[in-house]
C-alpha cells in the first residue's frame, strides 16, 4: 500500500447528533482506530447497523455503511459477507436491537461462525426511544425513564454468545478506547464470529450505569484517596480465555461463563473466550464448493453482454436426467 491510512480516512463530515458525553463516541473512535491500525482500506469494510442511537454509527464511518432495520443487522451483514468473503464486515448495534427484537438472529448467527465482528452497544436502555429498559438492564433497577423498577431479569450477553457458538467473545468499555480498539482488532483478525459487548454509558437516560459508577467514584480508597474502579482488565489478573487445544474447549467455556456472571463491585473486561479451532462458515462452504473463496458470488458474472443469464437451464436439467 502506497499511502498509509490515518484516522482521518475513516471519518465523515456528517453532523453527529449523539448527546454530549455519550459512550457511543468512544466506540466510534475505537472502531476507526482499529481499522486504521489494521490498514484496511475503507472500501473493503462494510459496517452494518440496526436501529437505535447506536444504529447511526455507519453514518460517521467512511466505509460502506448500511443502516438496516430494527433487530436485523446480522442477516444483512451475513448475506454481504458470504457474497463477498473478502470484505471486512462489522456490525454496530444496540442491546435492545440485538438482544431483544433481534435475539433470534443473534443466537442463530452463532451456529454458523461467519467471519464477522459484532460490536454491541450495551447501555441498559433503549436510548433512541427515550430510555425504556433494554434486555441487559438488571431486575429491580430504575433508570430515570422508568416509572417503576425493571420487572424483567437481565440477559447475560457474554454467556448467550458463548452458548450460541460465537468463537471470539469479549467485553470492552466505551471510555477505555485503547483497550477497546485492541479488542476490535482481535475480533476482526479472528476467523469466525466475534462478539464484543461494550459497556456504554448513556448519560441521558441511564443514570445508574454511569461513567462515574463504572469508574468507582463512589468508592474512594482511604489509602490512595482515589476511586476504586469497578471495571478491571481480566488479562491483568492472569485470566486466559484462549482455547489452545480443542480438548480444553469445554473447560474454557465453563470458565468464561462463570467469569461472565461477575458483576457489580468488579466488572471484567477483555477476552472471555476465543476458540480458533471451530471452522468458519466460509471454510464449511469451501469444503462443499472448493472454488468458493476464489470465485465467490460477488465475483460471478450472472448476465452476458446481451443481458441474458449465464446460467443455462439445460445444464441444470441434464443433471437430473435419468439415463
Amino acid at each position, binding site marked *: 500500500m502506497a499511502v498509509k491510512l490515518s484516522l482521518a480516512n475513516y471519518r465523515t463530515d456528517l453532523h453527529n447528533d449523539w448527546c454530549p458525553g455519550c459512550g457511543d463516541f468512544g466506540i466510534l473512535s475505537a472502531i476507526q482506530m482499529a481499522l486504521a491500525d489494521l490498514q484496511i482500506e475503507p472500501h473493503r469494510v462494510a459496517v452494518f447497523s440496526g436501529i437505535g442511537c447506536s444504529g447511526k454509527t455507519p453514518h460517521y464511518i467512511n466505509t460502506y455503511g448500511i443502516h438496516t*432495520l430494527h*433487530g436485523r443487522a446480522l442477516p444483512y451483514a451475513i448475506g454481504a459477507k458470504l457474497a463477498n468473503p473478502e470484505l471486512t464486515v462489522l456490525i454496530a448495534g444496540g442491546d435492545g436491537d440485538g438482544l431483544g*427484537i433481534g*435475539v433470534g438472529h443473534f443466537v442463530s448467527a452463532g451456529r454458523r461462525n461467519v467471519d464477522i465482528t459484532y460490536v454491541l452497544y450495551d447501555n441498559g436502555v433503549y436510548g433512541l*426511544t*427515550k430510555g425504556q429498559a433494554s434486555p441487559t438492564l438488571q431486575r429491580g433497577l430504575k433508570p430515570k425513564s422508568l*416509572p*417503576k423498577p425493571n420487572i424483567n431479569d437481565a440477559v447475560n450477553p457474554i454467556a448467550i454468545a458463548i452458548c450460541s457458538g460465537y468463537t471470539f467473545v469479549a467485553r470492552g468499555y466505551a471510555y477505555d478506547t485503547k483497550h477497546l480498539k485492541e479488542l476490535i482488532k482481535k475480533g476482526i483478525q479472528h476467523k469466525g464470529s466475534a462478539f464484543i459487548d461494550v459497556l456504554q454509558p448513556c448519560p441521558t437516560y441511564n443514570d445508574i450505569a454511569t461513567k462515574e459508577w463504572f469508574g468507582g467514584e463512589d468508592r474512594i480508597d482511604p489509602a490512595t484517596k482515589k476511586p476504586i474502579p469497578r471495571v478491571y482488565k481480566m488479562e491483568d489478573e492472569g485470566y486466559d480465555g484462549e482455547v489452545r487445544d480443542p480438548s480444553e474447549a469445554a473447560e474454557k467455556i465453563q470458565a468464561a461463563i462463570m467469569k461472565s456472571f461477575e458483576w457489580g463491585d468488579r466488572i471484567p473486561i477483555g477476552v472471555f473466550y476465543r476458540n480458533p479451532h471451530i471452522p468458519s462458515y466460509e471454510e464449511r462452504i469451501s469444503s462443499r464448493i472448493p472454488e468458493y473463496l476464489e470465485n465467490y458470488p460477488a465475483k460471478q458474472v450472472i448476465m452476458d453482454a446481451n443481458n441474458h443469464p449465464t446460467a443455462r437451464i439445460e445444464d441444470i436439467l441434464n443433471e437430473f436426467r435419468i439415463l
Partner: protein
Amino acid sequence: MLTGNMSAAWGARVADVDYVAAYPITPQSEIVETLSKWTSTGELNAKFVNFESEHSMITAAGAASLTGARVFTATSSQGLFYAFEALYTVAGWRAPILLVNVARGVGMPMVLQVEHGDVLAARDSGFLQLHAETCQETLDFILIGYRLAEDRRILLPVMVNMDGFTLSFAREPVEIPDKSQVEDFLPRYSYPRPLTGDEQVAYAPTMTEGVPYTFFKYQMYAASIEAKHVFKQIVRDFSRVFGRGYDVLESFMMDDAEYAVVCSNSYSSIIRAGVKALRRRGVKVGMARLRMIRPFPREELAKALEGVEAVAVFEQNLAPGRGGALYPEIVEALYHMPEKPKAVVPFIGGLGGANIGPEEVAYMVRVCEKAVKTGIVPQHPTLLLREDDWSKLRESLKVSGLPVEKMGVVHHV
C-alpha cells in the same frame, strides 16, 4: 389542550382498559409512556407490559383479549410492519383489541413523519379501520372502536389511525368525557367463552381443508361488512351521550358541489380550508372525508358524490406499480352509480410529512375541470408539492447531477 398522543392515552384511560401491550416507536411512544406512568401511579388500573417487539406485543394483546381483558396497544410504521403476521392472527382469533396506529412513512428511506403507507398496508388484515382528523376524533374513535370491536355481532379488532406529528404532537382542544358518561356508552367487556379455565375451548385450530377454512374466513368478512351498520347504531348512542355525532364519512360543502375532493385524516383540515377559499371565489367544490376505511363505505361515498362532475382523490401513500391504495376502491364505489362523475382524478401528496396548502386544493380542482372539458383523465397520479419544496428539490437534483425531468409528474403551484 391535548396532543393527539395524549388524547389516545386518555381514550384508553377513560375506556378503562385492563391490559396495555407496548413497544416503543416514534411518533407513538408518548402514548405508551403516558399509560405506563398512569398504571404505575394507579390512575389507570391496568396491567402494562413492555414487550421486546411488536410481534410479541400484538400476539400477547390478542391472547389477553381472549381472557376477557379489554386490551389497548399502539404502534407506527416499521412497528406495524413487524407485527403483520400477528395482525392477521389476532383478527382470526376474533380478539377485539384496539390498536392506535400513529401514521408514519415506511422505510426505506426512513422517515418519521406522516404518510398512510403503514396503516393502509394493513387494510386487509381483518382489523376494522377508523381514521381521525382531529385529536378529539382520536379519543372518540377509541371509545366507539371498543364498542364496535366488542359487539357480539362483530368481534374483530379495530385500528384507529392518527397522523404522526400533525396530530400526535399537535395540541388541540379536547373534551375528556367523564366516567359516568363513558359507563353509559360503553358496557363492560365480556368475551364469549373466554380463556378463563372454566371450559376447554380451542381458539386457533389449524384447518387442513379449504372448506372449513373458507367458512372461518367468510365469517370474518361477513362480520366486517356488518360492522358498518353496527357503527351507525353505535354512533347514534354516542351522540346521545356525548353530543357529538359521526358518520362513516363527512360531507363538507357537498350540497350543490360540482367538484369534490375525497380524502382522509389530518390533512383534511388543509383541504377543508382550500375548499372554503374556493367557495369564496364561487367555485362549487366540496369535500368527502372518509372516517371509516374498513369496511369501506362504498354506498355512502357514492351517495355523497351524487351529482358531482368530477372527483379529486387525495392520498398520502404511493404504491409502486399502482399509485394510491384507495383510488381503485373509490373508483369501484362510483362505478355502479347510474350517473357517475365524468372524471375521478388521482393525486398523491403529503408523503413523509411533505406539506400541501390551499393552493394545491385549487390546483386539484383545476385539473378536474380540465379533465371534464377534455374528457382526458390523467393515467397516473399527479404528485403535489408546494412551490418552495419543489424549488428546494430541484436545487438538490441539480447539485446531485440528476435530471430534473425525473420528477416529470410533479406539480408545483
